[in-house]
């Protein structure tokens, strides 16, 4: 009996008139939890009743507390007939079940009815008294925190990231159960709402249990979805990443300076190795067996019974359509990681460099050795052994091995996170995805959802093997989705294959590494001067390079380095030496599903890139239908991918982040929509242009046409480069090294032009100099493709858009945000539907939608649409529904212009934000940038400053000149020197600019917040799909918001048609989310997502129905400007406790 739930009904307001005669209402309230119901007295004849009830007390198991929602029903008392329901409120009491979140739920909740929408509000107070339960075999998992946020939540630090948790529950769908229609729509809708609420509670509890089993205390990146499978039932499934989180307490926050260096540790994972002895044991450690060598035959041949096959695919290979499963990696070859070849090359390069390093570094070491005792000893011992260079390879293997074993203990080494603590992500292999077409059958036993579990297990296994093929042991940015049409269901999963740092993954490791972290601090702390920081830099650089850790190379490029073996690639791809460190190989393009890592250096700004595709399909039944879909899928994937690649090239960029490919199945067509954010990564080679090749070169006019097109494409590329400020520095070819020769593989649409070193001489400055994509125009189809490439219009000036959390290249956000949802449903004219017209229609639909958004938000210019999330569904034969949710954030244009500055500033800002998050570093950037600067962010900044295009452009040029006639090693040393200089300058510059920035933005906030607080009775609740609020600091997480609503109407015309109906419903959903957040004491929802918006209409019957599922994290945030005031008042500025937000919100 571990919990007592207490509920008090205070009052109602704005109730609807239920008695036409008196124009009043006799309202009372039923409060139900589990099987217990309480009632208030009837408050006669009022639209604003004051019940002021006693405390209704429910004594319940904590299992029930987790599963059941609190149901509050408002009714109109009727003496003679049955009481009329006015509406209901469902309250999820989960946030009250863990101590750090909300303590009370109290506030006005909209009273919601599935037929009438919101009908007035009710004021409710809810409390829970929880008793400790010592039963080890308990079924509940109270206390496990859930976060939708796909990164480590602000104001927490990750102690351990345990890994993937998943669960699904199934049930009969009441809507289909009662097909006889004896029940009213209201009853059926309410039953569905209640059921789903129950199921999500159960699901969350079960996931929580798994987390407890893993000894975690939280789930981050929690994503819960519903599959409305129709007659076969209702599936609620969830995935997430189990973590052990530590709250950043105010006492810890008190010591920012001491703690900050520990961040440094994270960047150099090596030093955190629990056991320093590994250094000596390193060389003797045998190479890890090649557990994941790539075997194309395996994935190609894995053909299971019906329509279940595999396909590996890159744009450079011709498609071999064999089945629905697709393994996609954008020219990023898949390979095993620990291959001896790689080791060898690694060793070679290391040893050639090492002597110079040590000679250059040792004086520094000596000079500074007083303060850097341990770290230096470590490094020095490495050097002293003389075989430093050789140590590198084995050591790497050791690291791999360790990580691998940590991960291999798990069934699925998946992470739903998209942003990571610094140092966590070592390498990124590329996107891995798998799809499977299934026929739905009735779920016979809801308690044993084995089939669904098996389906997903299969897909996950697939993903895992794909990742292995890419030489990666983990998948990050992992997500799952379904598309259902009638009885056919496409299951999809995708993620980014990656190599992770083991430090966060294992208990032992972390505990071990805490030690050196602590002992390290004094050393760092004593370097008070900027000079120290600069001097330190080469040292740390050196130590890492000595140890042969590419992970420790300039932070901005490490993750780009290929994790697979370059000599054993199954896919032809261009590999070049990394443009940042010039030591490791990088692919020519990189596709990922994660956010841009905070330490990545980019040039210019990013932009939203979308590939859109439709394919007609014959209507068919069951098996035949599934087969047809399976046959179409590979072509779709291939074309989506081609489009993405072409558009990326057209933008002059070389990497995609946040890639999300959605394949939607309808009665007579399939739709594919891929969204991603394109960026120019400094570490990757400059993308080549696109060349058009005609098939019949003899025809003169045709030739002319082709050249005209070519010119247009070149112009577009040049224009885009200007627009997104992509102006990478020229880098001589010698440094880059020759690419790996590539087997020419002809494909109909594209092939990459292989590049050899002598070709490089002819520079084509108009659109890069290397491998141009060739578009062969051999039929009208291809013509269409080229045309469609050029139809994408860039956003109007002052607008940027991306689908990631933050826009690469913009960082000076101001505080104004506007989250929105836009829905469009288009009807296709049925006549002469061809793939071309369909594609064009779909393309227009999306483009027009974007244009509308830009127009609507024009008052916010300059602004950026972030986290643009498109969802496509095909509700009926000729209907296409596109739903977009995004947030528009304003930014300060004047600062953005100075790109060089912002680049440095960005990394600085990020770095110190990271500090703050991870290192119990409570002060905001503005107040403490100076103080924090000298210590922690040092290395990272230095790195970004130096590898960044802007500042060192000139210097780099000189270094390059130098290198052209000196040998490479010398130039490298020179480069280090230069970096050191740049760093010094860079950091000074940054500090100044940050200082300048703060009063400006602060003024802005004040201006804005002043009128907002004036006489408003309803507190403002911000909503954003991002995990942060610009210009503010999240001080407390109050719990997860996960709500499901159904709305139905039988008077569609009267409610303003479909648009009026849905507009009102979405506005109501927002209102209910805000009300719940406000009742928890919060003032914002972060990581908000509308997971489902299923709209059905029947205009002939004047009816429509819509289901919406939303989720997010309720938080309290405090404006930075307010923080400053507080900290100014308090002499000990850092004592800003996380909980102080409580007062602000109430």
């Amino acid at each position, binding site marked *: 009996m571990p919990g007592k739930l207490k509920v008090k009904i205070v009052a109602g307001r704005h109730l609807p008139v239920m008695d036409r005669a008196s124009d009043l209402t006799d309202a009372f309230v039923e409060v139900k939890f589990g099987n217990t119901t309480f009632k208030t007295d009837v408050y006669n004849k009022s639209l604003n009743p004051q019940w002021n009830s006693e405390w209704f007390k429910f004594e319940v198991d904590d299992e029930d507390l987790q599963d059941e929602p609190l149901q509050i029903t408002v009714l109109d008392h009727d003496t003679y007939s049955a009481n009329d329901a006015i509406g209901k409120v469902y309250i999820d009491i989960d946030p009250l079940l863990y101590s750090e979140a909300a303590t009370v739920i109290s506030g006005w909740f909209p009273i919601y009815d599935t037929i009438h929408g919101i009908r007035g509000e009710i004021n409710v107070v809810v409390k829970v008294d929880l008793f400790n339960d010592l039963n080890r075999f308990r079924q509940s998992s109270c206390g496990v925190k859930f976060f939708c946020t796909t990164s480590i939540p602000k104001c927490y630090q990750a102690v351990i990231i345990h890994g993937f948790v998943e669960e699904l529950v199934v049930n009969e769908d009441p809507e289909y159960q009662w097909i006889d229609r004896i029940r009213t729509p209201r009853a059926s809708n309410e039953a569905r709402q209640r059921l789903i609420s129950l199921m999500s509670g159960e699901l969350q509890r079960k996931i929580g249990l798994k987390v407890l089993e893993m000894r975690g205390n939280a789930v981050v990146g929690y994503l819960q979805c519903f599959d409305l499978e129709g007659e076969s039932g209702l599936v609620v499934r969830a995935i997430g990443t189990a973590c052990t989180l530590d709250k950043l307490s105010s006492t810890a926050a008190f010591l920012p300076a001491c703690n900050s260096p520990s961040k440094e540790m994270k960047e150099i994972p090596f030093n955190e190795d629990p056991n320093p002895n590994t250094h000596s044991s390193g060389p003797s450690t045998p190479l890890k067996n090649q557990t994941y060598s790539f075997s194309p035959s395996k994935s190609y041949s894995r053909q299971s019974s019906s329509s279940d096959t595999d396909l590996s695919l890159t744009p450079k290979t011709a498609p071999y359509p064999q089945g629905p499963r697709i393994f996609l990696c954008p020219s990023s070859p898949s390979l095993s990681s620990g291959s001896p070849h790689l080791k060898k090359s690694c060793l070679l390069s290391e040893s050639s460099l090492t002597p110079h390093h040590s000679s250059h570094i040792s004086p520094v070491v000596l000079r500074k050795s007083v303060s850097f005792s341990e770290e230096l000893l470590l490094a020095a011992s490495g050097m002293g052994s003389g075989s430093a260079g050789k140590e590198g390879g084995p050591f790497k293997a050791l690291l791999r091995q360790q990580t691998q074993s940590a991960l291999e203990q798990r069934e699925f080494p998946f992470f739903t996170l998209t942003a990571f603590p610094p140092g966590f992500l070592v390498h990124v292999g590329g996107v891995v995805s798998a799809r499977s077409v299934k026929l739905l059958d009735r779920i016979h036993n809801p308690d044993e959802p084995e089939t669904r579990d098996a389906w997903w297990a299969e897909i996950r296994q697939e993903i895992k093997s794909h990742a292995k093929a890419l030489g990666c042991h983990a998948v990050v940015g992992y997500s799952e989705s379904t598309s259902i049409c009638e009885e056919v269901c496409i299951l999809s999963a995708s993620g980014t294959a990656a190599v992770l740092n083991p430090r966060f993954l294992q208990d032992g490791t972390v505990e071990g590494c805490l030690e050196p972290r602590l002992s390290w601090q004094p050393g760092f702390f004593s370097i008070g001067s900027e000079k120290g920081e600069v001097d330190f830099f080469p040292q740390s650089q050196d130590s890492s390079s000595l140890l042969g850790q590419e992970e420790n190379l300039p932070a901005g490029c490490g993750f780009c380095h290929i994790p697979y073996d370059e000599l054993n690639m199954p896919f032809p791809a261009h590999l070049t030496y990394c443009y940042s460190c010039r030591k490791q190989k990088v692919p020519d393009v990189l596709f990922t599903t994660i956010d841009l890592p905070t330490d990545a250096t980019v040039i210019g700004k990013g932009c939203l890139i979308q590939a859109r595709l439709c394919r007609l399909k014959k209507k068919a039944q069951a098996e035949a239908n599934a087969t047809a879909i399976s046959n179409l899928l590979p072509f779709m994937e291939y074309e989506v991918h081609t489009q993405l690649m072409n558009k990326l090239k057209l933008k002059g960029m070389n990497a995609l982040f946040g890639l999300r490919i959605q394949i939607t199945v309808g009665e007579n067509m399939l739709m594919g929509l891929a969204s991603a954010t394109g960026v120019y990564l400094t570490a990757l080679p400059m993308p080549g242009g696109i060349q058009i090749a005609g098939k019949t070169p003899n025809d003169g006019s045709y030739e002319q046409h082709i050249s005209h097109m070519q010119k247009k494409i070149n112009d577009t590329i040049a224009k885009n480069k200007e627009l997104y400020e992509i102006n990478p520095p020229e880098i001589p070819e010698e440094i880059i090294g020759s690419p790996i020769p590539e087997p020419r593989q002809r494909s109909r649409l594209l092939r990459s032009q292989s590049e050899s070193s002598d070709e490089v001489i002819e520079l084509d400055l108009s659109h890069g100099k290397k491998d141009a994509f060739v578009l062969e125009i051999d039929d009208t189809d291809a013509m269409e493709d080229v045309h469609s490439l050029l139809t994408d219009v860039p956003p109007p000036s002052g607008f940027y858009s991306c689908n990631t959390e933050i826009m690469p290249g913009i960082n000076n956000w101001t505080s104004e945000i*506007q989250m929105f949802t836009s829905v469009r449903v*288009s009807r296709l004219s049925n006549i002469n539907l061809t793939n071309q017209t369909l594609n064009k229609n779909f393309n227009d639909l999306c483009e027009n939608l974007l*244009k509308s958004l830009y127009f609507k938000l024009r008052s916010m210019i300059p602004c950026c649409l972030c986290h643009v999330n498109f969802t496509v569904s095909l509700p009926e034969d000729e209907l296409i529904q596109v739903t977009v949710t995004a947030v528009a954030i304003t930014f300060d244009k004047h600062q953005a212009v100075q790109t060089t500055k912002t680049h440095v500033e960005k990394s600085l800002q990020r770095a110190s934000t990271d500090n703050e998050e991870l290192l119990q570093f409570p002060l905001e950037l503005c107040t403490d940038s100076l103080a924090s600067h000298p210590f922690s962010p040092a290395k990272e900044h230095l790195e970004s400053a130096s590898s960044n295009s802007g500042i060192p452009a000139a210097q780099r040029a000189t270094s390059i000149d130098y290198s052209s006639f000196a040998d490479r090693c010398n130039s490298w040393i020179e480069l280090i020197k230069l970096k050191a200089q740049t760093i010094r300058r860079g950091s000074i510059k940054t500090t100044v600019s940050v200082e300048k920035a703060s009063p400006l933005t602060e003024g802005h906030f004040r201006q804005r917040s002043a009128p907002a607080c004036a006489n408003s009775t*309803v507190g403002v609740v911000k909503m954003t799909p991002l995990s942060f609020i610009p210009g503010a600091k999240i001080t407390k997480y109050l719990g997860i918001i996960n709500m499901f609503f159904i709305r139905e109407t039988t008077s569609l015309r009267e409610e303003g048609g479909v648009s*009026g109906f*849905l507009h009102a419903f979405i506005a109501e959903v927002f209102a209910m989310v805000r009300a719940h957040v406000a009742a928890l004491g919060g003032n914002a929802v972060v990581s908000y997502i509308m997971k489902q918006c299923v709209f059905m209409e029947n205009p002939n019957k004047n009816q429509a129905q819509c289901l919406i599922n939303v989720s997010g994290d309720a938080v309290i945030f405090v404006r930075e400007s307010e923080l400053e005031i507080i900290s100014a008042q308090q002499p000990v500025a850092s004592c800003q406790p996380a909980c102080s937000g409580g007062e602000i919100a109430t």
Partner: protein
Amino acid sequence: MTNELDIFVGNTTLIDEDVYRLWLDGYSVNDAVGLRVRSGILEQTGATAGVLQSDTMDHYRTFHMLERLLHTPPKLLHQLVFQIPPSRQALLIERYYAFDEAFVREVLGKKLSKGTKKDLDDISTKTGVTLKSCRRQFDNFKRVFKVVEEMRGSLAGNIQQHFLLSDRLARDYAAVVFFANNRFETGKKKLQYLTFGDLAFCAELMIQNWTPGAVDSQVDDMDVDLDKEFLQDLKELKVLVADKDLLDLHKSLVCTALRGKLSVFPEMEANFKNLSRGLVNIASKLTHTKDVRDLFVDLVEKFIEPCRSDRWPLNDVRLFLNQYSASVHSLDGFRHQALWDRYMVTLRSCLLRMYHD
């Protein structure tokens, strides 16, 4: 390919002031799009007509949903469905309750009933204000009227409290309610030259001085009706013109004081008795509802028109009226000084305001 459904919902409700104005002005979506196109917005933003159409539809839908709340503005403040910054809420309310001068002059003093509502067609044609807008304005008048009709306390204050209007607008509404309640005739041709401002000015003075609220702030209907007792008492003033001696004395006092100060002195002297009779008779007849309704007609006919035909400058009218009301205090036989002041102070200000071309 046609968009069957096209919506945009922001967490903060987007309000476009220009579109709001077009909506308030009663333009259809298509007309509004046309007007927006003509405003050059497409060139400024590079948008297409389709985008503009969709945007306008969206805003119209939002306004339509907000309209229900705007009928009871406090609800707009407390509702949870639309998150609107307070400044924007104020703007929405103020604009919604704003009315057209041309329209208000047509309905001022008319009974706010269904009958009048039927005439809105004609008013719309006559004033050039769209029928939709006329309806909104008329319904606003009626709604405000119904709410404050039987309420205690200051009329303008009540309106401000229940409709959250600005001070200025609340006072205008008070005038509208006052006129509607007392059904003052304002539509006659000879009254056409009076602006709403003139009439609202008069109404405000009358509310201040001639209603029960002027003497007792705790009565029902204190500001809406004229003070019956006061109107009854006004009959006493009749002695000023009925008693020939008193009239002569009054005239001589005024003439002595104003001699040499008026450019129209001879005309004044000649017309004094007519004017005085006019003003006093208006007062004494106010017990009849019919005469109350004709108050402004009478004022124009009995005082303003005679003066205007003799081309009195405004300043002379002011001097005359000041002296005319002040001199009564020197009439020893007249005992209703307070009553006279209550009547004349208001009337004098009204007349001066109304005295223009």
